[in-house]
């Protein structure tokens, strides 16, 4: 049984091991000890802060094997994407170029640089060990964030986005980047992604093209890469599409991967989650698998528990599970079916 909890500075070595394994382009998870330490420090103070609306907080969670202390995954939430700067994305747009006289009716696809998603909350830094990808534990570390958001709505924006990694090859080259960003940045994809993970993104205002890009002018490989998902991000994409995120409107300015977005209140795990008190005893012997979160902040815990639960009734938890989730008799938990 694994548990999701806020990262602590003591996790640094384990987090770096995870980061080293994460693919290029997960820009929020750089393989850089100093940056990771900073990331954890920022997260610790974010969890500790009193917050009444979403600001520059960044929350970072880990997935722990309680016995060994080993970390098997991580995930994060940025309270406000592009805080104090702008959050850049390409909007998929269609213009109709029509001539009635010549009987021509062209739908022209363009990519427009936009800041539409600035200030939305951003799900980030998702990564699990490969062995866990197709297990419910991947759902825990990903969707556990949504339970956390449901418990602390004042900390997040009304809308939420997820950047899904787009295709790149073994050499770390991305066909979309090569056809678009590279003209303006004059560097390879891997270098650009590194840059973007290591620094403030103000340089985007200086370097990104202002005018829309006409998609028919792009090479086929780049057109095909638009909105496509890197194999290692498929799991994240699948989870979020099931959560009801829209996938069509925005793509990443670097690799062309889809940027998913949703009204926060409309995300399934948030909309359908319920709150119920715990009663500690024998636990359920059978039933359905639920994602449970204790509603805490610094002491936030979430895990997966098999429950035979009826809405309106308390949750019967074993003493072991209750301890793992850090709850006592009568404490409230938030849950959603897996």
């Amino acid at each position, binding site marked *: 049984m694994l548990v999701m909890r806020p990262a602590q500075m003591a996790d640094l070595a384990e987090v770096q091991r995870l980061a080293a394994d994460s693919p290029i382009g997960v820009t929020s998870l750089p393989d850089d000890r100093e940056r990771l330490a900073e990331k954890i420090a920022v997260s610790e103070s974010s969890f500790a802060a009193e917050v009444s609306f979403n600001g520059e907080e960044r929350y970072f969670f880990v997935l722990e094997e309680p016995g060994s202390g080993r970390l098997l995954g991580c995930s994060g939430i940025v309270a406000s994407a592009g805080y104090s700067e702008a959050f850049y994305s390409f909007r998929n747009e269609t213009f109709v170029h*029509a*001539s009635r006289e*010549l009987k*021509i009716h*062209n739908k*022209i696809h363009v990519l427009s640089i936009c800041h539409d998603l600035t200030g939305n909350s951003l799900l980030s830094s998702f990564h699990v060990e490969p062995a866990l990808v197709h297990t419910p534990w991947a759902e825990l570390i990903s969707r556990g964030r949504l339970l956390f958001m449901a418990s602390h709505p004042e900390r997040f924006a009304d809308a939420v986005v997820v950047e899904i990694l787009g295709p790149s090859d073994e050499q770390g080259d991305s066909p979309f980047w090569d056809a678009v960003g590279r003209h303006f*940045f004059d560097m390879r994809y891997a270098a650009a992604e590194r840059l973007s993970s290591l620094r403030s993104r103000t340089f985007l205002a200086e370097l990104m093209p202002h005018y829309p890009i006409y998609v028919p*002018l792009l090479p086929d490989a780049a057109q095909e890469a638009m909105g496509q998902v890197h194999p290692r991000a498929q799991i994240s994409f699948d989870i979020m599409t099931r959560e009801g995120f829209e996938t069509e409107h925005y793509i990443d300015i670097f690799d062309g991967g889809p940027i998913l977005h949703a009204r926060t209140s409309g995300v399934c795990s948030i909309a359908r989650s319920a709150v119920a008190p715990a009663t500690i005893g024998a636990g359920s012997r059978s039933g359905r698998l639920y994602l449970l979160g204790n509603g805490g902040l610094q002491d936030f815990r979430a895990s997966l528990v098999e429950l035979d639960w009826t809405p309106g009734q308390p949750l019967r938890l074993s003493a072991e599970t209750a301890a793992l989730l850090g709850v006592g008799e009568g404490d409230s938990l938030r849950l959603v079916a897996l």
Partner: protein
Amino acid sequence: MIVRPVRNADLPALVDLARNAGVGTGLTSLPFNEERLAQRVAMAERSFRGEAEKADADYLFVLETDQERIVGISGLTAAVGLREPWYNYRVGLTVTASRELDLYREIPTLFLANDLTGNSELRSLFLQADHRGGLSGRLLARSRLLFLAEFRSLFADKVIAELRGVSDARARSPFWESLGRHFFRMEFRRADYLTGVGNRAFIAQLMPKFPLYSCFLSEEARAAIGHVHPHGEPALAMLRAEGFSYQGYVDIFDAGPVVECETAKIRVVRDSQTLVLAIGTPEEEAEPYLVHNRQRQDCRITAAPARVAAGTLVVDPLTARRLQLCAGAQVRAVPLVARPHGAGR
């Protein structure tokens, strides 16, 4: 050999000429469309009669042999774009740079513009193949400028000319293949034809409206921007010698260069003078002159050896006959080509 205004009676000859011109030459402004040609000729007649508004006026000249055979045509439009938008790409520059990251890129960028609106335009130059070489080409091309010098107030303060852009042996324009085709879904030749017959509304409807970063064009297309087709080199050389230069505007279909010159600085305009015609023997120091009879509707322009002497222009009797002038008449004249020492000015 004289240049004179086109007349309705020339129409059959013009149709023949256009039919020959139309095949593979990309002469956009003289398409083989009889109805459209007839309209242009009618407009030209009104223009020479002084009955056309500046926005419509279109002066079309023919080159006629002494046997009264028409072997070439050239045009001069008073003002482009005053009825429908006149489009060009302006070749501008986008620089993306970050001092922090030590990055610097220059990206030539095409801006769709109507900037050349209102200027006069040289167009529709065509000369039958068997008359190229000799003075005919120079006469046909430059006679328009002499007409413009004489009737300065009918024209704008700047004159432009669009030159044919680069294309391959099969008349495929790499610029069109890389850009226009995606938006027009037709062959270059058809788009060219449509504008030639005066249909320009479709450009506004179909063209990409935002500035275009040239890095998204093919290498061949980028290389074609602002470059003239080899067949256009002589025309470009003539225009350059007259003072025209490329200032960054290109054709939206094939990216051929637009050259421009302030009217007052065109050599023929600047250097032409009014003289009294004298008939005699031009003699050895004669050089070829372009001579205009100073008429609008009955305009006649020819090229002939002549010399200036005491306020007169001495030409031989044939030249006077061609101009249908007697000695003592006023003419406007200019050396046919720039004097070598003038080139360095």
